[in-house]
């Protein structure tokens, strides 16, 4: 069994997204706008902003990643291709992994690319910005993976969007803690290695477990 189906599914999603470029950009725009709101709330003093920057960037990244989740399986469900995927002889786990990969490329990657801008807004040092980008690189895939479980579970439900948030956000708290913690530690002159290792571990665990859970969730949601 090859992993080919994973990349086929991911490529298909990316191709479909190219037709809806504006929609694909919404999460990253939200990310920038939301993060930019904080100075208006807490004041423009750079010293203070720098202290809270890592937390703000991470929370906004979290919310932005969640925003685009409820459409992850909706169009496939609507046009019947999801049912095809479930019934096909291909591994549903690999298909789920492929969809999560596509979601990360479309949502996570832009966030990573936009994050230095936010770092600038908050007066972060360039080394710190680099560490922050690295934490996002490790952490945003986890958000996509965990989020896809939520998206599969809430398929077709009216309150799907908010429900995904409620279900998935608590599970993302460890990623948030270690992601933001790494940046804070580095900024304070300490080593971020422990945090980054833990982020890597979370990525590994969710990479192995989440597609399985997503596949199970898809079968549950479609069975009815």
């Amino acid at each position: 069994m090859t992993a080919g189906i994973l990349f086929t599914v991911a490529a298909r999603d990316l191709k479909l997204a190219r037709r809806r470029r504006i929609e694909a950009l919404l999460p990253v725009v939200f990310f920038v706008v939301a993060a930019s709101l904080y100075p208006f709330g807490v004041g423009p003093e750079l010293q203070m902003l720098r202290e809270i920057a890592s937390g703000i960037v991470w929370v906004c990244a979290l919310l932005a990643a969640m925003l685009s989740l409820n459409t992850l399986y909706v169009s496939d469900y609507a046009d019947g291709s999801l049912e095809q995927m479930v019934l096909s002889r291909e591994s549903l786990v690999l298909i789920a992994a492929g969809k999560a990969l596509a979601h990360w490329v479309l949502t996570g990657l832009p966030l990573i690319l936009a994050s230095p801008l936010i770092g600038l807004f908050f007066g972060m040092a360039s080394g710190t910005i680099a560490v922050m980008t690295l934490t996002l690189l490790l952490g945003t895939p986890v958000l996509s993976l965990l989020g896809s479980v939520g998206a599969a579970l809430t398929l077709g439900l009216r309150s799907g969007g908010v429900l995904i948030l409620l279900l998935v956000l608590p599970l993302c708290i460890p990623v948030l803690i270690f992601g933001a913690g790494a940046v804070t530690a580095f900024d304070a002159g300490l080593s971020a290695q422990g945090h980054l290792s833990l982020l890597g571990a979370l990525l590994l665990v969710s990479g192995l477990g989440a597609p399985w859970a997503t596949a199970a969730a898809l079968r549950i949601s479609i069975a009815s």
Partner: protein
Amino acid sequence: MRFFTFAAPSRFYALSGVLIPWFWLATVCLTVLGLYLGFFVAPTDATQGEAYRIIFIHVPAAWMSMVLYLVMAGWAVVGWAFKARLASMVARAIAPTGAMFTFLALWTGAFWGKPTWGAWWVWDARLTSELILLFLYLGYIALTESIDDDRRADSAGALVALVGAINVPIIYFSVRWWNTLHQGASVSIAAAPKMAETMLTAMLVMTFACWAYAFAVVFMRTRAIVLEREAHTDWVKALREDVP
């Protein structure tokens, strides 16, 4: 309790109807005993004064909130794996009670924190984990209640509860780490005094009281769920005829 996994809902309905009053009796007796021990036998604490007596409800509530989550997840997974309807119904019935205990643990934790540490809320590792546990309960309830198809709701709930249960150690570990990093780690509400034996006994008795309460209420709720779901069966219809 394995007996109930495959039992017919009607059997459960009959049996639980007999047991519930006894659970209530146990609840009342144990509560009276526990509170008596806690307030009239256990001595005053040297550091915290009388405020510490909140632990006799705070700690049992916290324990119940955690145990009930695991029990709920367990029955939900059993129901999902073996297609045992009654197991799934019990899981659904446990959730609100578990959430109640979690809320109570947070409330009493705050009321204990204020006189001891000066603040209504502190981001103590244990309280923070309780808060996240509340979110997990609310997520389970929100998901299962928003799915109309019972079988899908039960199975989806089982997956959510399972994922939650697996994540609880990860979340707890990361919260504890986070807590020690950001503060002087000295703020810990349940840095309880050295427990006099009477204090420990009172706490244990109160825990059993909460257990008995949980059995009573969860069984009551399960019976309601059984009636709701089995409405089309003859035995439920016959029951309806008995109602004035």
